[in-house]
């Protein structure tokens, strides 16, 4: 068995070789910088209105133009990144909190427990993603936090199944049998021996999920079930911009571009990590 440090070195080397992963990493880092420094980067208050300057095309004072009630679009796109990051992190947290223990338990215990959990998961899985998220937000009420919670729940099956599959392969290893032979409790085995060996796929899945969560939040906000005005969300900006495609295309174009670039970044990063951690690709 190789020592962990050199495994990490191989993965890192592998990652450095893939331009896909690097472009993804750069985009994600840029996104994080914008998110953290939003108040410093935004030239205006994202909810400050200027009724004398409505639907202004991009100018020197408003590089991305103004929206239908005279707010600076650049500032709104910058601040909107925070809603998107929140969406990504919160939903993955929800999905992990619920999906991880379920997947671990199902995979490790097997038998009836496995059947029970996985059939339940399949019920959730049988709903189309967005429809389920819509249903949950419709019941809970149109608030950002509800929308994010809904997306998180929608992701649970993906995490649970992935982790279960990983556990099934990991638990056949000799070191598990050894730990059990030494009298380690189930919880201890799961925590110390099974879980760490499942981290790689979880990381990849999280990266993809963040991208999908950003998209879904935008979709729910677009449909009026997520962020409430005047909070800037890319989805809401896109929804409002759609009506002005002819008169003022910049209203929808820039938040749309922001969604595109961010989602692309997280997807590329996910691809890069997957390739780096794939044992078959190891050289």
């Amino acid at each position: 068995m190789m020592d962990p440090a050199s495994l990490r070195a191989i993965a890192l080397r592998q990652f450095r070789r893939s331009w896909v992963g690097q472009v993804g990493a750069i985009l994600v880092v840029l996104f994080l910088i914008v998110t953290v420094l939003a108040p410093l980067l935004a030239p205006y208050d994202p909810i400050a209105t200027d009724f004398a300057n409505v639907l202004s095309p991009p100018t020197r004072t408003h590089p991305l133009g103004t929206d239908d009630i005279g707010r600076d679009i650049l500032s709104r796109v910058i601040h909107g990144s925070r809603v998107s990051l929140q969406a990504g992190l919160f939903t993955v947290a929800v999905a992990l909190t619920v999906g991880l223990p379920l997947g671990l338990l199902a995979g490790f215990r097997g038998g009836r427990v496995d059947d029970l959990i996985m059939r339940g998961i399949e019920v959730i899985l049988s709903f189309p993603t967005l429809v389920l998220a819509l249903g949950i937000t419709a019941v809970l009420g149109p608030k950002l936090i509800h929308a994010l919670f809904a997306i998180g729940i929608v992701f649970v099956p993906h995490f649970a199944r992935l982790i279960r599959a990983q556990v099934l392969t990991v638990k056949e290893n000799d070191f598990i049998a050894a730990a059990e032979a030494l009298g380690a409790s189930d919880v201890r085995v799961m925590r110390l021996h099974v879980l760490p060996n499942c981290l790689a796929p979880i990381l990849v899945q999280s990266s993809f999920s963040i991208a999908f969560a950003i998209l879904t939040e935008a979709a729910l906000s677009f449909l009026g079930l997520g962020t409430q005005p005047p909070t800037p969300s890319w989805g809401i900006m896109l929804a409002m911009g759609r009506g002005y495609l002819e008169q003022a295309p910049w209203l929808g174009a820039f938040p749309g571009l922001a969604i595109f670039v961010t989602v692309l970044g997280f997807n590329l990063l996910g691809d890069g990590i997957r390739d780096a951690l794939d044992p078959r690709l190891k050289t």
Partner: protein
Amino acid sequence: MKGWVRLVALAVVVLAAVPATVVAQTRGGSIRIGMDADTTTMDPHRSTAAVDRQVYNNVYGKLVDIDARFGIVPQLAQSWEIKGGGLVYVFKLRRGVKFHDGTDFTAEIVKWNFDRMRDPALASARRSEIAPVKDVKVVDPLTVEITLSAPFAPFLSVLTDRAGMMVSRAAVEKYKDDFARNPVGTGPFRFVEWVKDDHLTLKRFDGYWESGLPHLDEAVYRPIPDSSVRFTAMRTGQIDIMHQIHPKDVGTAKAERGVKVSEIASLWWQGLHLNNQVAPFTNKAIRQAVWYAVDRNVVQRVAYFGSGAPAWGPFPPSMWAQDRDFTDWKRDPVKAKAKLADGGMPNGFAFTVKGWNQPIQIQELQIVQAQLKELGVDMKIELLEFGALLADLNSHNFVALRIGWSGRPDPDGNAHVFLHSKGGLNRVRYSNSRMDELLDQARSEADQAKRKVLYAQVTRLAAEDAPYIWLHHDAEVKVWAEHVKGFEHISDGMMRFKGVWLDKR
């Protein structure tokens, strides 16, 4: 007597309006109508949605109708006479009118229709509209006499809407509750089919009483809720006429070749409902602070692209009842601040307003939000789907709520229901005995000049009490393809197709 005079006057106007060169009117063809929503029911006595009236105006005949100048004109009633100090209405009915099912339209049928609307078991939405009706008597087969319990000036005006629409007794008795899907009237078109959320089709009624009408063979209503999509359908020739266009598209529509745009004053008002029974709006000074904090001119300029008019009361500029001398509705931050202090909240307060999740409504709410914020008032917006919004409105489940009213031709219909303490749509639970008195007086007064004075007082008292923050009166805009001829645009926004023909050469 007055009715006869009007009839003659109308005949003169109509004859004078006929152009020297008469354009040949083409028979046949199908008109496709783009609607903002689907019809909810085809039973006019049960309908509560404005959109339904669009279809009804072509399927059902009414006792009377309104013209472009809000004049009451004959339809199924050929003439009428008002006697007994405004208490008795005698209608002379048109001879030879048939329902689509072949049955005759008679005084007996009119009486039966009124009995149907007044029957508590039907729970008709019309019941409250015709509440003053005490008795309906058949004088002879073509004369009906309606007695009111108190003089009710808006009565004829009420009959130009659904309360005046006559349904076939035979059809109601045959279909019972299914009548709502098998409607039978005396209108120029008969009902053919209705595929929910897809289309509703009407066909020419060959037995229509006005000879030579209608010109069209068919009318197809298509619900296309999104205004932009509807407008695109208009421009690409998928529909021939469209109802409700977003003000931002009006300019584009006017510049578009082959498309006609007509913009007139509507009967609508838009505004905020403030729940007078829930803090902080139990406090009059706080309501007044909001009244002075909003800038209605900005709302008009930004959200409505300059169309329509700012609103400071329930009466739009199209109505004689509007008090044009009233000016105490302009934005005044100093006054608003003072009112906040009077109300014990000098540093402002926070509240949530519920609104419909539609672009123009969202925009309007955000404008108000920004204006209130300047005074330290934090207005949170909660957007809902229309059905949910209506449910919250009807159950008084709101602190503030933004919604509009499509309006009625008589000013009573724009004010009494909202401002009278017993008004059917007084969801804000506003109550002022002086207001009740003024409204009751205004509806029983027949003299328009005297009514105007009363409605001016209503406007001023409503501004003083501020149970609603009126914001805007929409423009009534219709867009149609150039090949659509003979369409008459009326302030109630209803599309009447009997005189319309298609000129597709």
